[in-house]
């Protein structure tokens, strides 16, 4: 992966915080271990961890299926929303015949996503007809923490819908970087949907619902599933997720609960020189980064750690004691402690002038089949958000080009998209600002 994801999973006073403990009352040893971790987290100043619900106080049956994220708001959900365990990315060709059809698409997406994120009775029809709902979640659709985030690609701004003059200024088709081999069947798209929820089935249900409602408007172009370990998610930021190279990934990610920081780094704002309709939106980078895991597993631990710049077991930067210890790069100008080409050092040099290059990462692991050579096809579904693509991802990627890690990774797909601003109320719809901007 080009850089290690991921946002530190924040402590969060959601009911799920106590669930992991509550589910295992028969395992006091494990609970004790987890409480130990919680106090460890407190010692590094994790906010909110003191609100963890004691074991046994949760209502039985609280299995997370009723967790939900609000649909309405000035920003879409799914960007700074804490990451649930399952993700599904689908990129589409938009089939809408004209701009009126495009509006129908955006209105349909708005209606379906608002319903799916809230839940309710699955639509039914006389049994002689195919059922309008796939039934994957049963007769009552539950929210299961679902977010569906709609983003548009550069190709939507071609000559079909007359949107060229309001294209976000930095939205272009992803060009291949030196180590990239972007497959035609896994790149770009007019529109991307990012589904995130507690379970893969909920994402699939949502996708099938949307496809059922948009037969003449959307054709899937490529798709990929992602996952994170549910046990780590349940620890709510006390632990960093490991990627499929076995390294902790996301230790230094931004705190998505810091609104001011998100306004600065993630959301497009007035004064940015971007078209007015984009305010409240964000540039989304999606990269499918295959990892050559067999080869990685045949690489000496010392070399793995040199390439990444962290201890594999603890996640601590090399020569430091703890995962969250700050490396002192000015005191190590020759890279004797952490090599100059180490992934973490290139990705985040921790200089004042590189503060503007920060991005909010939202990565997932992925695993597909096998390569044609019979090797495992798995890696990182890298995603990040930023208000300025050039200052954000493009700058960081430029620093990472030719890093030693490239021998073990190969970006094979992805694209740049622009996350539409949110829908503040029931009268509005996704993309309304974009369409109104062209009359």
């Amino acid at each position, binding site marked *: 992966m080009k850089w290690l994801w991921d946002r530190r999973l924040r402590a969060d006073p959601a009911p799920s915080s106590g669930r992991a403990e509550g589910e295992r009352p028969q395992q006091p040893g494990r609970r004790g271990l987890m409480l130990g971790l919680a106090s460890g987290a407190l010692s590094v100043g994790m906010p909110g961890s003191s609100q963890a619900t004691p074991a046994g106080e949760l209502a039985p049956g609280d299995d997370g299926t009723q967790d939900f994220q609000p649909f309405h708001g000035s920003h879409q959900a799914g960007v700074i929303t804490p990451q649930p365990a399952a993700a599904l990315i689908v990129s589409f060709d938009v*089939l809408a015949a004209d701009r009126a059809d495009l509006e129908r698409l955006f209105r349909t997406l708005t209606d379906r996503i608002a319903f799916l994120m809230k839940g309710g009775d699955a639509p039914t*029809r006389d049994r*002689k*007809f195919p059922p309008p709902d796939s039934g994957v979640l049963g007769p009552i659709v539950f929210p299961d923490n679902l977010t569906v985030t709609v983003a548009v690609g550069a190709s939507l701004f071609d000559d079909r819908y007359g949107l060229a003059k309001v294209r976000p200024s930095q939205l272009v088709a992803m060009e291949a970087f030196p180590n990239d081999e972007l497959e035609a069947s896994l790149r770009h798209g007019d529109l991307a949907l990012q589904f995130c929820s507690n379970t893969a089935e909920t994402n699939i249900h949502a996708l099938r619902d949307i496809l059922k409602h948009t*037969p003449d408007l959307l*054709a899937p172009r490529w798709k990929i599933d992602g996952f994170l370990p549910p046990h780590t998610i349940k620890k709510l930021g006390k632990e960093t997720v490991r990627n499929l190279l076995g390294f902790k990934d996301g230790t230094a990610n931004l705190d998505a609960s810091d609104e001011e920081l998100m306004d600065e780094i993630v959301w497009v704002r007035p004064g940015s020189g971007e078209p007015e309709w984009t305010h409240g939106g964000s540039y989304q980078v999606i990269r499918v980064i295959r990892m050559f895991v067999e080869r990685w597993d045949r690489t000496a631990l010392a070399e793995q750690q040199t390439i990444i710049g962290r201890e594999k077991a603890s996640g601590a930067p090399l020569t430091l004691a703890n995962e969250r210890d700050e490396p002192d790069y000015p005191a190590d100008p020759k890279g004797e402690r952490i090599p100059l080409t180490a992934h973490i050092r290139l990705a985040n040099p921790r200089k004042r002038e590189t503060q503007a290059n920060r991005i909010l990462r939202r990565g997932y692991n992925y695993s597909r089949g096998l390569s044609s050579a019979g090797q495992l096809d798995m890696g990182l579904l890298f995603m990040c958000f930023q208000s300025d693509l050039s200052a954000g991802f493009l700058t960081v990627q430029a620093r990472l080009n030719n890093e030693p890690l490239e021998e073990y990774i190969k970006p094979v797909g992805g694209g740049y998209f622009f996350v539409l601003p949110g829908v503040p109320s029931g009268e509005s719809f996704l993309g309304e600002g974009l369409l109104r901007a062209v009359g």
Partner: protein
Amino acid sequence: MSKARIAARSLSRLGKIAALCLPSVIITSQVLGQANAAPVAPGAILITLTDAGCQPGSVSAPEGKTTFQIKNESKRAVEWEILKGVMVVDERENILPGFAQTLTTTLDAGDYQMTCGLLSNPKGILTVAATDAAVAKPSAMELVGPLAEYKLYVKGEVGSLVELTRKLTDAVKADKLADAQLAYAPAHLRYERIEPIAELFNDLDGSMDSREDDFDKKADDPKFLGFHRIEKGIFADKSTAGLAPIADKLMADALDLQKRIDDLAIPPKELVGGAADLIEEVASKKITGEEDRYSRTDLWDFQANLDGARKIVALLDPLIKKQDPTLDARLHENFVKVDALLGKYKAGNGGFESYEKLTDKDRTALKAPITVLAEDLSTLKGTLGVE
């Protein structure tokens, strides 16, 4: 498809056998003469047969699927029938004294009679009411015309299939490679037009229209026969060597198919459901160009599936229009859209350009009308009340 259908048939047969066996099984486990303890099925209409007749003697049901539970409290084994005039609509035979059986059947709105034990007993009255104020579903009678016309169409197509397959196989056996190549697509498309009917004959479908992916050893598998095996020989290998026995088998299969179709009474659901089957073929296979991978004549078959679906829609058009004019209009609109896109690739010989000429843009554009057709045609059976 055909395999599933056969499985479904044998399952329902098993179900019948099980239903017939049920009373005797119960006899062994219960005191003879005691009433069957089977609970009344939820929503079922309960009818008790006594020595004097049906109790109640008159029942009503909504149109559609209804379950009857028939309990025999008379002294002899009886059969229970639903009659429409002299026609037996459905029946349960050999209900032993003291036992009950259920019958689930689909009834159109109208007046029916029930037999009630002894022939001398008065017949019961069964009234089936239309469920809503919407236009009544077309009756089975209204499908008789379209079914007869469709049978003629299928016979016409299979006649052409025989004729054109002969042309193909003769050319193959005479080692006339160019003639064989020209004869391939026109012959195969006849099969594609009537695919839902042809696929009813699982064995023939396997030997006539399999693809190399269906076999362990792919194209080298000796079981790989039929159109696509010949297609591979004459387009990919560019040789007729070794194809003569395969040509003979294909010709024999085509004649066999013709004969079997002659004898076939096409069930309504094959007619009405066939349009959706054909479009699903297009959506899942033709659009990807995997059907005719050696000859690249996929667009011929694309058109053929479409023609087959359109023929069915045309035959049912008055009925669809009566039930759902919006659906009818949208079906036509989307057929026209597909025609316009496919029309760009028509070639002079009545056929089409190579699949490779199909641009990504047009392939993507085709997905809109094809997917809408697939969605709409999937509602056709429901719209016309055919199960």
